[in-house]
């Protein structure tokens, strides 16, 4: 730290480059603004994915409907899945990681503010690239899992490029996610405030830490899978083509070596959010903190050992299937530990049912239901029946919507004041909660039975007379209710945005460092780096009768990184290059890559000395702007 400061002081005191308006958002390297960008972009893609879901359910409301059939329907399911996983769930989590983690560990910024911005713009470029496919001849239609050789078939007319959009979009977004993960890993290891030991980190930070490790080691696998698919599609490679010795099961392995850790990448931060919200609103510190940390790490580790349970029907053989079955069941144990710890955090508490806590407590039984079907799915011989049916669809929506999305809403209602300085309406929030919660169960509970009664997933229609009508109808009504819930939430955001800033530093009587600073957080986060004296640092001070944290340093000038347009330009380069590859105009791809590489050189050649906020400015800066 001391050396860093010495260096910072050596930096030139030149006038900071500061932008306003759109340029401010395009050039920002402030993790709080990047968090908001992730939230807006992720929210936007979430609405698109949700709309696709509504269209899917509309087609399936009655048997033999002909609204969206054949490839159109496959495009809807593919885009729904891919959008929701990569362009909605991931960025929404990155929104929280950016908005909260540096504050929770008492840091002024992330380790690499520039890389942080680059990560966002790459994700956004990938998401936009992929979604433009709707207007350019058709969206990808091979499922979000894009199993070869269905995904490696090339349209003989050369008009349909759907899967190319999938391949390029995900590769660009994947680089963004990877560098984002590395950034947070380093941030959490190196940037913690004095006294913030690993075992004093808030649980959300812990889960982000484990998620970042999983991102680092899982994303390269899908990068390789996508590169191989791209080589097969664009350059006539033979990875997945049986006639030239290729093997389609290879894709499945690579995809799921990434894909299974991916679902834990998604659910881990959700666990963290629930831990924060449940403990804050029961006014109790988390029950069994150390076992929660251990369970988080263990789940992260095991998540790399179970990918074959997605492939029980591929023909791996009984030995492989059995080993992976047992490994999968093992994950239930640490997950169960978490559930019981949450319950015993609530036990004996003084529980306030704010909207954030409604979502968090609704998460618990919902996630348990998703978890038990997960154990059922781990039994290979029974999975021969469940696999690729609506039973699986129900299971993973219980885990991802009932687990992840409920906790994202809990997190939004909880941290909204810290991000925007305004409290979301509790009244509208309750309407939102009940519509969404009831709609969710109506949609997905019947799907368990639909699957067992013989309805495979990704079917655009089903025959009447086999008992599948009622379940599908109820499911569609549920989807509409969830849609209504989302509309209420949007109204809530608009209403909230129009009112005065009304959030104090600590509206919920919180435990952790983010509640010690103004809402929204000023751009330098902490005027003085806090000294952390225990787990739940702020709560500890409150219990000792202190109103504020003890500072770990005197007030002094604060070094800030300069804003830069380069992350945006680099992403734009890859975005352009992506279209070049899709349409086989390799000059365009080359030009795009050159833009990116030149930007990298510029970044390397011209050192960023940053700028300083002087002590006298600190007082004026109180509010910050959001």
């Amino acid at each position, binding site marked *: 730290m001391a050396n860093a400061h010495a*260096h910072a002081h050596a930096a030139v005191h030149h006038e900071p480059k500061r932008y306003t308006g759109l340029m401010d958002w395009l050039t920002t390297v402030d993790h709080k603004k990047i968090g908001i960008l992730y939230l807006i972009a992720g929210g936007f893609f979430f609405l698109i994915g949700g709309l696709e879901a509504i269209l899917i359910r509309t087609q399936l409301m009655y048997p033999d409907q002909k609204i969206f059939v054949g490839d159109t329907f496959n495009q809807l399911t593919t885009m729904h899945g891919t959008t929701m996983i990569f362009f909605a769930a991931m960025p929404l989590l990155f929104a929280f990681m950016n908005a909260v983690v540096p504050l929770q560990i008492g840091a002024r910024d992330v*380790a690499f503010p520039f890389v942080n911005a680059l990560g966002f713009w790459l994700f956004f470029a990938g998401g936009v690239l992929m979604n433009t496919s709707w207007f350019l001849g058709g969206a990808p239609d091979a499922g979000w899992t894009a199993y070869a050789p269905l995904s490696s078939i090339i349209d003989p007319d050369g008009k349909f490029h759907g899967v190319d959009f999938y391949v390029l979009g995900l590769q660009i977004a994947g680089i963004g996610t990877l560098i984002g993960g*590395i950034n947070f890993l380093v941030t959490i290891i190196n940037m913690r405030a004095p006294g913030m030991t690993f075992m004093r980190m808030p649980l959300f930070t812990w889960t982000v830490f484990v998620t970042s490790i999983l991102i*680092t080691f899982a994303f390269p*696998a899908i990068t390789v899978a996508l590169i191989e698919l791209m*080589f097969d599609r664009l350059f006539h490679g033979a*990875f997945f083509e049986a006639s030239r*010795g290729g093997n389609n099961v*290879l894709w499945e392995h690579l995809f799921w070596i990434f894909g299974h850790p991916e679902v834990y990448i998604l659910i881990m931060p959700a666990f963290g959010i629930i831990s924060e919200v449940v403990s804050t609103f029961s006014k109790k510190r988390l029950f069994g903190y150390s076992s929660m940390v251990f369970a988080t790490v263990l789940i992260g580790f095991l998540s790399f050992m179970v990918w074959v349970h997605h492939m029980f029907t591929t023909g791996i053989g009984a030995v492989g299937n059995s080993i992976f079955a047992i490994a999968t069941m093992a994950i239930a144990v640490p997950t169960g530990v978490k559930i019981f710890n949450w319950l015993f955090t609530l036990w004996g508490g003084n529980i306030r049912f704010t909207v954030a806590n409604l979502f968090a407590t609704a998460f618990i039984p919902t996630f348990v239901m998703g978890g038990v079907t997960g154990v059922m799915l781990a039994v290979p011989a029974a999975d021969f029946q469940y696999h690729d049916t609506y039973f699986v669809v129900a299971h993973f929506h219980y885990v991802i919507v009932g687990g992840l999305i409920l906790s994202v809403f809990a997190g939004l209602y909880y941290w909204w004041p810290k991000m925007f300085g305004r409290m979301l309406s509790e009244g509208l929030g309750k309407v939102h909660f009940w519509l969404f919660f009831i709609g969710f169960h109506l949609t997905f509970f019947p799907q368990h039975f639909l699957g067992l009664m013989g309805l495979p997933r990704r079917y655009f229609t089903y025959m009447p007379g086999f008992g599948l009508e009622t379940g599908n109808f109820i499911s569609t009504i549920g989807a509409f209710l969830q849609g209504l819930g989302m509309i209420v939430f949007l109204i809530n955001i608009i209403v909230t945005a129009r009112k005065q800033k009304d959030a104090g530093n600590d509206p919920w009587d919180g435990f952790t460092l983010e509640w010690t600073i103004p809402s929204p957080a000023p751009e330098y986060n902490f005027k003085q780096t806090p000294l952390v004296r225990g787990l739940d640092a702020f709560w500890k001070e409150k219990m000792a009768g202190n109103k504020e944290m003890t500072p770990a340093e005197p007030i002094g000038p604060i070094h800030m990184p300069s804003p830069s347009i380069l992350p945006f330009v680099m992403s734009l380069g890859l975005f352009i290059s992506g279209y070049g590859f899709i349409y086989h105009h390799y000059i365009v791809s080359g030009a795009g890559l050159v833009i990116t590489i030149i930007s990298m050189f510029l970044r390397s*050649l011209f050192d960023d000395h940053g700028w300083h906020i002087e002590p006298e400015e600190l007082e004026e800066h109180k509010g910050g702007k959001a």
Partner: protein
Amino acid sequence: MAQTHGVAALPAEPEKATLEGKNKLLAFWTFLGAECVLFGCLFATFMALRNQVPDGPTAQELFDLKTVGWSTFLLLTSSLTSVFAIMNMHKGKHGATQLWLAVTVLLGLGFLILEIDEFTHYVHEGHKFTSSAFGTSFYTLVGCHGAHVTFGIIWITTLILQGFKKGLTVVTAPKYYVAALYWHFVDLVWVFIFTVVYLMGKVGH
């Protein structure tokens, strides 16, 4: 201001002297972890497909260990010269650092030339990217390594050019250091390629 830093002002391990430097090192180690997974998957693919040659020469008929031996010699030597560069950097000898990095780049270029020559040769013998799953996975794995070497050459060259202007400071030292780390990693991958692709291709089935 960079120029005002005398050699004596540099700490013993200038790459770790600042928080920025420490962050960079940790991030780069993590990135290399991710690269290990990337190459691991490419190796796994190659292992699965290396005997899938419905048409065209097999690995055994194709590979000539003599050329590959020279490639290996060049690349492993370049790893050694990059170590010399970092040793000199730790001693604060900027000129020697630059010189050894330049030697590293030249050796890397030599490797690349041999590799391109080798690939041209293979294509003439009918071992093409599109000819079989073996061909596709071979060129993807070895080519990906070659792309890493190319990127490394461009990167280190840029650093040398920067170095003339910026000198050796706590800002440039981490850059030298991570570039050298990267170069070691690329060499290490080559050791695996030499073993798995070439040696096993020649003798194992």
